[in-house]
């Protein structure tokens, strides 16, 4: 398994649960930690980006028909459902709740509203519904959470049904630790793991709250203690919700830490710290890759390989100054290069075709060749490396990742049986 984002971790865990020997190769911490800690399946229609999706799974099924080049067309709605159920089961109700058939609208750190279908329990009270009354609470020593901006934007944004939330802002000053004026969200999250800090915080905030208000806080309510947020709500005697921040994203860390711990406990051998390179092929198969272990490279062999390295944002795909797009680990041929131009010069304009470039797969997630050149026949791919999606505008990243990860893992288990 090459890559430790949500796709790599999910596939590695599923393969290990099936009893296979899995080695996970990664350069550093995967991208899941940088995410908002929710599971997006489909937030906006790829064919009509202005339209929010109400039922993600139904929309995935429609998209699979409407756009045969989209990853969901080869993954299929059933694999997405299976993948979400697997992830849900592995992470448990303390970390993930929701219904893949229903998108809810959650506030962002700039006060926009964002559709997603599985979220952390600590976020649920923030679902934007007509008549909701929010008090958005900023922390004076925490940058990146501007309560006034968030409350102002939420209050002026009409909801899809024409309704409104009301929101006001306030700021309180409870230091996460002494003699520190600029604390990161993570420092606050560690403080909130401590029940005594929660009590001190609640004592400062509670007198400021008005009846019937729901309290919106930055997503820093505990890193290790999954009951920190509900304990705080009890102390305040008000419903509480978290709004994810730019990285370090505490909700993203919770999911990443839980999946990595589960993978290790399931026996996945994790080799962290080096870029993977030098694929060796024999008889149409990939035999080994190298990891740049300190001192000298080590050769990692495998019966099958899974590429789950992400897209441009992780550096798995690169564009050079000659306009050449490269898949960096294995040098695979890429799909989506036929669009011209790949990049148009209008930064704020329409979609850039470059972002749909990626690796092509068959319905079992086995890598295929879009141009007739050879690809190894024991190679699968999952997640952001797949061609055909613009994950960040569609809000489809985690759905594609877990759907393709589970489908690839199940196909590999069948192949090796």
């Amino acid at each position, binding site marked *: 398994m090459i890559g430790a984002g949500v796709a790599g971790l999910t596939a590695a865990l599923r393969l290990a649960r099936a009893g296979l020997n899995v080695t996970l190769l990664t350069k550093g911490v995967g991208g899941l930690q940088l995410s908002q800690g929710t599971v997006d399946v489909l937030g906006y229609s790829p064919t009509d980006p202005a339209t929010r999706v109400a039922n993600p799974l139904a929309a995935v099924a429609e998209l699979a028909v409407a756009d045969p080049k989209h990853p969901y067309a080869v993954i299929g709605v059933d694999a997405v459902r299976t993948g979400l159920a697997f992830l849900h089961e592995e992470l448990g109700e303390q970390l993930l709740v929701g219904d893949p058939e229903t998108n809810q609208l959650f506030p962002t750190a700039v006060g926009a509203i964002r559709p997603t279908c599985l979220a952390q329990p600590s976020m649920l009270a923030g679902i934007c519904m007509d008549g909701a009354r929010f008090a958005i609470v900023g922390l004076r020593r925490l940058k990146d959470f501007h309560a006034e901006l968030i409350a102002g934007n939420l209050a002026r944004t009409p909801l899809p049904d024409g309704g409104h939330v009301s929101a006001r802002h306030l700021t309180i000053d409870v230091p996460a630790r002494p003699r520190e004026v600029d604390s990161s969200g993570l420092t606050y999250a560690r403080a909130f793991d401590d029940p005594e800090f929660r009590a001190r915080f609640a004592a400062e905030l509670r007198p400021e709250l008005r009846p019937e208000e729901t309290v919106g806080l930055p997503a820093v309510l505990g890193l290790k203690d999954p009951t920190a947020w509900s304990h705080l709500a009890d102390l305040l005697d008000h419903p509480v919700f978290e709004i994810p921040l730019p990285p*370090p994203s505490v909700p993203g860390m919770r999911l990443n830490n839980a999946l990595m711990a589960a993978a290790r406990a399931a026996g996945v051998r994790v080799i*962290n710290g080096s870029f993977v390179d030098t694929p060796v092929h024999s008889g149409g198969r990939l035999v080994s890759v190298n990891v740049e272990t300190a001192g000298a490279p080590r050769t990692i062999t495998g019966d099958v390989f899974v590429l789950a390295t992400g897209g441009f944002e992780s550096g798995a795909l690169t564009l050079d100054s000659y306009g050449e797009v490269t898949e960096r680990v294995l040098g695979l041929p890429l799909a989506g290069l036929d669009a011209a131009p790949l990049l148009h010069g209008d930064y704020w304009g329409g979609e850039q075709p470059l972002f749909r470039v990626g690796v092509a797969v068959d319905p079992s997630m086995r890598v295929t060749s879009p141009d007739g050149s050879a690809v190894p026949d024991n190679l699968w791919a999952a997640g952001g490396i797949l061609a055909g999606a613009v994950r960040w505008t569609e809000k489809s990243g985690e759905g594609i990742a877990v759907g393709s990860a589970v489908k690839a893992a199940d196909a590999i288990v069948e192949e090796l049986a």
Partner: protein
Amino acid sequence: MNTPQSSPPPRRSPEQLSGDPAVSDSLDFAGHEFARASLDHCVKCTICETVCPVSAVTPLFSGPKFVGPQAERFRNGESVDHSLDYCSSCGACTLACPQGVQIAELNSQARAVMKADHMPVRDRLISQTTLMGTMMTPVAPLANAVLANKPIRTVVEKVFGVHRDAPMPPAQTQTIQGWLKKRGPRKTPATRGPIVFFHGCAGGYFEVETSKRSIEVLEHLGYEVLVPKQGCCGLAQQSNGLFDQATDAVLKLCDDLRAAGELTIVSSSGSCTGMLKHEAHEIMGVDDERLKDVATRIRDMMEFLLEVADAGELPELSPIEMTVPYHAPCQLKSQGMGMPALDVLRLIPGLTVVESGATCCGIAGTYGLKKEKYEIAQAVGKPLFEMVRDTNPDLALCDTETCRWQIRKGSGVPTEHPVFLIHQALGLS
């Protein structure tokens, strides 16, 4: 692949260099060359901030991203942020970085430049690991008594700045070389050819039992184990910014190890192995064929055993019914080879190994000995000490010596190298 590229940074003028006799080649390298090469790969994702064990427990260190790639942009032979001295050089940031920024290396280099003209006597002394061993072994009972003596340690703290409660190595009455001389011929035939064993200073003088058991395991596998006379790798000097002394030491050691022949080198001294594999080159810029040669051939003991196991050549292991905590040291993880001890120990039937999940035990070589950093090092280690006590109050496993001293002292739990259980499972103890 992905070698960071950037234009050469500005050099100090010849007048600046000639006016400063303390500026050596390795310090010049540290201040100017390698340090900035990977800097522009930083995308400010903050992943390094989330793994730093020091900034997690104290606001005195502002975190690897700020002190590393961000502050580095403002350095030009000058120090702009003295919180840099609180970096323990555990390397967790570099290991976690998905972009290939060598954050810990940047910080080690910048610290060496910062300390160059006012190196504390204390830092010169505590990095003399061989000297400590040669002085303490002949008078082991006395040395142990002195180190356990509170009034003496208080004076040492006041005069030298070594914290009175900091963990100290247990002096032994016999060195590994002494044991090798006195023991009889091996009991099993050497069927697999020769191999070189590197024990390091701590494995030679203090953690002698680890070296003995490693040699016995290697011999049991059929190797003829050669143990050439060997000096210090210079790691403690490197981490204290004494780059010239450390460079001399590591090259001398390469000569020692190469004298035994073009063989695989195995070591149960995890952090010294890291010094030879990459730190001497990456942090101090030592670019020498002798070092490259040794770096390519050396294996950590458990890494070597995993290669043997993966090749299907590890003999059957007897069951050990036990649950044991295992802590992978930061300087072992930074070698980018995963956690081989965990994978090998899992081959012992009946043994449940619980990985600590801790980034660092806090000691980070000599960091946790220093009076101004002792409390931080203890705070870093606290969750690990608790995890160890909760998992098995009678035994913990950890690959490097100073980390074992820290865990023993902090948790009160006897802590040994993972090879102890392999030794036992092979029927050797």
